[in-house]
């Protein structure tokens, strides 16, 4: 098992070497990049908004219910919600969700191309298939996931406001005061930097599993599942490392 893991790591590094080369035609690359940003990023906006609104609302309710101590000021609800949304939910949890949506899409698309010999067809033409297929997806995701994360932060907090307005769990004034208290701009940059790395993991690992898929549709499904599982685990491990490095 250890040997197989090292073999996979080596194969992944070799694939990345092929991916990160100069595109054969910049115009074709930019066309692909726009398509990928649209397909992988823009098409994920709605799911990001829906999830963020609801989770933001739930976070506020949970905190308001669980921090009902007279010694703690009411604005703590806004402050804690902001910290959770900015530091972990909109970056890490949202990337885990995107792994399921975008990562499986990437690995199944590339995997299907592999088993139907479309990648071989590219190679025969003299196209660097890894570069042509994976680079636009990777760059596209690294460019657009931070946008999704900022959107998620905005809509998460909006969900919090909505719940304050509807349920009066905490007053809007207290919630807003909490949101503004002890704010550190660095947290936003920390979240963005983290997600750029997570986006790279999502695109490259999913592409790796698709690129080396073998067999038929069943194997493509298996590759897609493996891609999601491994990416999720690596996101969680790297979250721990990055947090310790940047915040510890």
């Amino acid at each position, binding site marked *: 098992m250890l040997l197989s893991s090292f073999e996979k790591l080596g194969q992944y590094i070799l694939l990345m070497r092929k991916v990160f080369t100069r595109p*054969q*035609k910049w115009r*074709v690359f930019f066309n692909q990049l726009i398509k990928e940003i649209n397909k992988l990023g823009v098409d994920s906006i709605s799911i990001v908004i829906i999830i963020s609104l609801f989770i933001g609302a739930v976070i506020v309710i949970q905190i308001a219910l669980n921090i009902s101590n007279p010694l703690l000021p009411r604005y703590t609800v806004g402050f804690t919600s902001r910290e959770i949304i900015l530091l972990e939910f909109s970056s890490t949890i949202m990337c885990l969700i995107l792994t399921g949506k975008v990562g499986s899409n990437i690995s199944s698309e590339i995997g*299907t*191309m592999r088993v*139907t*010999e*479309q990648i*071989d*067809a590219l*190679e*025969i*033409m*003299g*196209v660097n298939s890894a570069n042509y297929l994976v680079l636009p997806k990777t760059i596209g995701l690294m460019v657009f996931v931070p946008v999704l994360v900022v959107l998620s932060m905005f809509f998460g907090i909006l969900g919090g406001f909505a719940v304050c307005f509807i349920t009066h769990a905490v007053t809007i004034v207290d919630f807003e005061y909490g949101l503004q208290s002890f704010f550190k701009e660095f947290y936003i940059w920390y979240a963005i930097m983290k997600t750029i790395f997570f986006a790279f993991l999502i695109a490259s690992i999913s592409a790796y599993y698709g690129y080396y898929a073998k067999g038929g549709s069943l194997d493509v499904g298996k590759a897609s599942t493996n891609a999601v599982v491994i990416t999720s685990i690596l996101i969680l491990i790297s979250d721990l490392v990055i947090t310790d490095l940047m915040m510890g």
Partner: protein
Amino acid sequence: MIEVKNLRKSFEGREVLKGVSMIFEEGKTNLIIGRSGSGKTVLLKNLVGLMRPTSGSILYDGRDLTKLSTAQMKALRQEMGMIFQGSALFDAMTVFENVYFPLDMFSSMSRSEKKERAQFCLDRVNLSDAGHLYPSEISGGMMKRAAIARAISLNPKYLYCDEPNSGLDPQTSLVIDQLIHEITTEFKITTIINTHDMNSVMNIGEKIFFIKEGNLEWEGTNQDILMADNEALNDFVFASDLFKKVKEVEIKEIRDQE
């Protein structure tokens, strides 16, 4: 000319190609035949560089494919066109875009010239009106024709076909065979077809190579095959009663003429 010298390929200790040597004739339709699992596809994948042989050499006009640098390999690949068993058209592109793609990537033509060339290739395979359709919207025969159009778009010197008739009805198979043969003659391409379709063997096989268990068992023309005394070849080629009868009739005709 493509010359294969003592080609060997093993997978985890199992030897699939056991020292194959052959010369593919230039400007002709060369056929590789053999039972499933005999090593035909492995041989074809080695010929186009999708697999690296364990040992041996593959010479393209003297250039050894096994020793080419990445840049040289890229240049050689632009002299190749390939038709895959399942057509391997890009799902996300229309038929026209599939044919246009290699031109867009590698041709120095202007945009309008590229479009003209792509349309010419589609016209040549009788798909003039199917350019706007996606691969999922066309039949198997049309997919094969689109794959031929894509393969010839860059004016290749060598055309490879991996079982071009698989999954097609006999009539469409004949059309595809004829089309490949016409293109071979018209554009003076060296074509190598991997098949176990006996109609193709008899109709278009100018040079035939019979592979058995990783060895070259027999080679000759489609006329030689009728008189061949190789037992394994006869068992394979004339496995069906229909072909046995065809053989008897053909031999009778030849003897009558003599």
